């Protein structure tokens, strides 16, 4: 067990005019998740600390936070990974803060919905599965992993500067369908992203790729979409 100092961003819209920080000290195992620390604080020190969480192992996307300045899932980073016992936790940037670590995700989801993030193929379906080769399936494998946690988009300076930019997560979702050999909606999606708030706001800063808890090569995916727009082909 080791002693950990947790400095938490606090904002209660019902009582506070501006945010502040509260500091908690607690005993933790080096292998504890940061989420475990938040649970200990909430359970035993201050039940009003508010944050989202659900699966606790990095697949539901609820608990993206800024931990010591970097976007991470609180359930996917261990105390020992941080290299320090002083941990500062703040909400992800660029979205309205609603309470403590909880932000308004609606703008994020609205951007996501704007890129046709769904399968399009109006041809009559065969009686069994549509055939897709192992290679064709592999082509878009990386971007199927997205859990919509928002860690990428809220680490992007272009998104901070202008939240009309659809952001990396939305482009990743579009990529997943654009490069799916069974899908017929690529042209329309590329047109949506060929916009001043589409792919060209990406300045290849790579923050998104670093932030992604699913290790998706986001900047590369955005680059592939840019190339498809420029060349008009998907090879």
């Amino acid at each position: 067990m080791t002693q950990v100092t947790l400095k938490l961003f606090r904002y209660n819209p019902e009582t506070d005019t501006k945010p502040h920080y509260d500091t908690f000290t607690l005993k933790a195992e080096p292998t504890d998740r940061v989420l475990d620390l938040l649970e200990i604080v909430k359970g035993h020190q201050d039940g009003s600390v508010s944050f989202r969480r659900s699966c606790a192992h990095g697949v539901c996307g609820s608990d993206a936070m800024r931990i010591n300045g970097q976007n991470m899932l609180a359930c996917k980073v261990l105390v020992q990974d941080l290299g320090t016992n002083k941990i500062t936790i703040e909400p992800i940037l660029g979205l309205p803060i609603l309470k403590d670590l909880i932000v308004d995700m609606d703008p994020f989801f609205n951007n996501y919905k704007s890129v046709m993030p769904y399968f399009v193929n109006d041809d009559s379906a065969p009686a069994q599965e549509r055939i897709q080769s192992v290679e064709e399936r592999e082509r878009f494998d990386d971007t199927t992993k997205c859990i919509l946690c928002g860690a990428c988009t809220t680490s992007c300076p272009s998104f901070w500067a202008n939240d009309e930019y659809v952001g990396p997560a939305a482009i990743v979702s579009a990529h997943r369908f654009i490069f799916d050999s069974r899908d017929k909606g690529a042209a329309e999606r590329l047109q949506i992203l060929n916009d001043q708030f589409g792919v060209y706001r990406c300045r290849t800063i790579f923050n998104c790729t670093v932030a992604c808890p699913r290790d998706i090569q986001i900047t590369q995916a955005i680059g592939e979409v840019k190339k498809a727009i420029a060349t008009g082909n998907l090879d």
Partner: protein
Amino acid sequence: MKKHQFEVVVVGAGGAGLMAGLYASKSASTAVISKLYPARSHTGAAQGGIGAALGNLEEDRPEWHTYDTVKGSDYLGDQDAIEFMCKEAPEIVYELEHMGLPFSRTKDGKIAQRPFGGHTNNETGKPVMRACYAADRTGHMILQTLYQQSIKNNVTFYDEFQMMDIIRTEEGVAGVVALEIATGELHVFHAKSIIFATGGWGRVWEITSNAYAYTGDGVAVALRRGIPAQDMEFFQFHPTGIYKMGILITEGVRGEGGILLNGKGERFMEKEGNAPHVKELASRDVVSRAMYLEMKQGNGINGKRYLYLDVTPETVNKYAALDGRTRPDGTPYKVTGEEILGKLPDIIDFCETYLGVNPVTDPMPVQPTAHYGMGGIPTDKFGQVVIDKKRNPLPGMFAVGENACVSVHGSNRLGTNSLLDLVVFGKHSGIKAAEYAKAADYIPLPENPTEFVEKQLEALRNSEGDERVSTIGTEMKEVMFEHVGVFRVEEGMAEAVEKIRELKKRFKNIKLDDKGSKFNMDLLNAWELSNLLDIAEVTAVSALKRKESRGAHARDDYPERDDKKWMKHTLAWLDEDGIKLDYKDVIYTRFEPKKRVY
């Protein structure tokens, strides 16, 4: 208080709720309300596959799937519903593929399939490749695909709305009450049909694979409104959770050739009395019990409470050769580290993140983890809730997915059948709920539809005791894991019942720190604990009364299955004086109960 009116209201936005919402909204005005954002639901944590006898790699038949499921259920499943589900399976998997679900592929470009526990070729008795998969993230793909289709079809969502009550009057069900988490405001959803798809309650136990959100809200709310809970004593412990954390390691690992080893390096599943034929690919109850006994005999790794799950190529290939396992083309089964990485990327990621262990080179420390509720709100095979031993329906009320008990899983669920259950019964309950709504009138709302919820919330808010919610929760999880877990005995279960009752009393003496309205997670977590406590009590009482061993309910003091006395479903009602139990017949059509051997 805000009021809304929809013909159909779906509660929960996991696989079952989304599927129900997609189908109901084709013909009826429909709202899907969920306490989480849609893509956050626990369906997304399912890994290994969805069962369907497609026969893409070797011969398979829906009838075999039916028999395997009946056998897996230890003959407590209702056979008409099981047959229905397994027959529907191929069509619904193709339907998911047509919605764009990115399944992994065979060399021929078809949906890839892998072996899973309890799924066999009924003629040879050998494991069959029936689990249709997308790497080890099949649930994630199902959840994403159904959410994507919901966006495409303009399904109406109320995100982060906590359902807290069914509006049930003398005339029937009239809708639900939900709390808008962002504001604390109560909303009344006036509806003709209600579909509960609220998921499970694994958070009753200390070590669990389940999400924090899995607090049994649907079952608890139904219990408070006079609807029984069925077969709650049957809760599945998945054999392979990450040691101490409980995080799921898919059975797909064993499907790909992974081996369970004890501290002496023995492959204990092949011992007589365990599963000498299918070994690691026996049903989950069988494997969890074998593991528990190994650890009890001091055969854990370094004498501790865990064992190894080994999927390193050396181990896989060694035992595949000993078993004479072959590929579909007849060549010997051999894997490389690269193939393991390609087929189980998330498992490898979890192990590296949480354990610092790379499963391609080192074995994984595992222990059984509370995973899945076979019981739940009793329904017929269209998801229609039936509320007594004669299976009389509660018109307009539907339940589907883990919070429902159709019962297709009986006393033990086969892996891959939960995802199948979600989509098959999600679809049919959506269709039926819309049909019902089209023919029915709205039942008038009572004068004060939110009264019951307000009372509960006031009691929580105004309680000024000295108990902390988290302490009560921890004590509940410990006693349930200790005494109502993989193995059970009379005294232990009686102690658990007593302890839960004591905790329920102490719960009346809690004190919350957060007195606000907006995002009051302190308040909601306390309410969720009240659900878990009710469910723990129902589970422990139902278990205590069942004096036999069947499926996931294994008793040291009654080690045999007793079909004469106990081939029946438990029904439990919660009332002022405690829990009332009754029993109803199992529907069986063509499979006579036999001794279960793997």
